[in-house]
């Protein structure tokens, strides 16, 4: 008799097949090409093996490290602020008694926007000449045509703003759901015991919300590279590399300079970065679940 495959394996097989076909094979190909001087316009260069020279090159290039550092900084600031704003919004909406449903619906608005659309939208709004922001400032009597997408700090602020605008909703909605699910008794008890609102928030509400927060973080960390679409459209990494992130640097090296081998080497660094973020939050999530006895 033929040995039958275990059922769990059969059930998982389609998922593994499709992921392998679409992600694994191309990744192996790009891993190989990162050890070649592969140029898009010269396909034959794919067969020249140069060992780890591409990696050596990017690891000793300060422009690469600047972009790497900026990417980590960008993600850290964006994720933290998204969490903070999300928490604030959720608490505010939770306090509302009438029209809460409408508010919640409005909150989901940015989730429907394509990142590339968000990029164009804010490129338009922050345009120093015809943009909404400068038009408002000037109509209010300010003399400045603030170069939102040019000045080093303002440009970073603008892309952060766009990124945060797009992603805060996920946090707000998840945390809000956490607030709904929260049992009322401990809070009542704390009030009777004379706790200040801050104390009961800090010691009762927040710990309960932690798993929700980590879910949001994990969901986001799967998708951090979405910021590429936004930044590429808004500033393209410029001016003078002031908003250069790993992804914009990589795409320019690969597609414009056609140096795909080198770009794929950068790609691997960016993949490792994404994976590090994801694993970090997965662990936090499991820990938080275990603490609340929700582990499965």
């Amino acid at each position, binding site marked *: 008799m033929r040995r039958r495959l275990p059922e769990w394996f059969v059930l998982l097989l389609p998922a593994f097949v499709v992921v392998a076909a679409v992600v694994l094979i*191309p990744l192996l190909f790009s891993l190989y090409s990162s050890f070649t001087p592969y140029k898009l316009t010269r396909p034959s260069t794919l067969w020249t093996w140069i060992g780890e020279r591409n990696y050596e090159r990017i690891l000793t290039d300060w422009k690469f490290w600047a972009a790497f550092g900026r990417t980590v900084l960008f993600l850290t600031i964006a994720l933290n602020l998204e969490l903070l704003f999300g928490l604030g919004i959720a608490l505010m909406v939770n306090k509302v008694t009438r029209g809460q449903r409408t508010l919640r619906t409005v909150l989901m608005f940015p989730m*429907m926007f394509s990142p590339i659309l968000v990029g164009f939208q804010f490129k*338009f709004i922050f345009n120093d000449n015809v943009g909404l922001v400068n038009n408002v400032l000037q109509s209010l009597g300010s003399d400045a045509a603030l170069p939102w997408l040019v000045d080093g700090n303002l440009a970073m602020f603008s892309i952060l703003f766009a990124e945060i605008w797009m992603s805060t909703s996920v946090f707000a909605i998840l945390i809000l759901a956490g607030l709904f699910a929260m049992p009322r008794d401990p809070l009542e008890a704390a009030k009777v015991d004379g706790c200040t609102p801050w104390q009961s928030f800090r010691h009762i509400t927040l710990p309960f919300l932690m798993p929700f927060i980590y879910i949001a973080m994990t969901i986001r960390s799967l998708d951090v590279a979405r910021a590429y679409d936004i930044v590429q459209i808004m500033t393209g990494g410029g001016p003078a590399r002031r908003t250069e992130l790993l992804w914009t640097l990589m795409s320019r090296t690969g597609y414009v300079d056609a140096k795909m081998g080198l770009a794929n080497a950068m790609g691997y660094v960016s993949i490792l970065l994404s994976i590090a973020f994801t694993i970090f939050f997965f662990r936090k999530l499991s820990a938080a679940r275990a603490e609340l006895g929700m582990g499965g």
Partner: protein
Amino acid sequence: MDRNKTHRNRRRVLKGLHFFGLFLVMSIICIPGLWIILNSFRPTVEIMAKPPVWRPSFTLEHYRAMFGGAGQGGVPVFSYLWNSIVISVTSTLIAVLIGMSGGYAFARYRFKGKSGYFVGLMLFRAVPGVALSLPLFIVFAKVGIIDTHFGLILVYVAMNVPFTIWLTDGFFRQIPKELHEAAEIDGCTRWQAFWKVEFPVARSGVASAAIFAFLTSWNEFALASQLTRSVDSKTMPVGLLDFTAEFTINWGGMCALAVLMILPALILTFIVQKHLIAGLTFGGVKG
């Protein structure tokens, strides 16, 4: 008496602050989108005007141009819309089916290295689209599925499967094992038991996974821009770039297409929003 009064005053101030904060937040969320919608109805001269014109005039010029033929700045909107719908809907359906079976496997079976498989799948989701786009392009070109619906559907299925597994896994886990055991005792096969007993309970998880998969496919750009070439398969986000030719960004036209792009997502999300929230929280937390 006096203390009561200050107390009341303080509450009033807090209430005012609360209201103001909410108002501010909601404005920031709404204005950028509304600005896009508004500008899709304004003539180009007015959009570019300096000093700004605040009283908007109304025109359908951009919509008319967009639906017009080649030579009048028309873009093949209907092809893009059709491609987007076909690709997003098909890939969502398949991803949900595959993801559900995977989620069920994780929730109901014990096997070696389970958590390793699970995290591994998630990590594939985390690979940045830009890093994937070129090798994927070359592989697809060799196979000959560039610029086809099939190619893009395949990619989006792969993108959406891990997250669907995650959400549905959480849902199936919540359902007590006794439920399907009871059904099997009643003479159902495991397959029947699944559809009759477990699936209905997990429905809102599946719905939220579906809406997430749909939004991801509908909005994806980095891969679509590489893997599509012509009106045969170009999706709406790629179509947006039609308005940035070498010399001019046509803001009005772009806004008009953007409105068309947001509308379906908006309608769909509102229909299933209840499931969306429930799915996210229970799927994830209890997982």
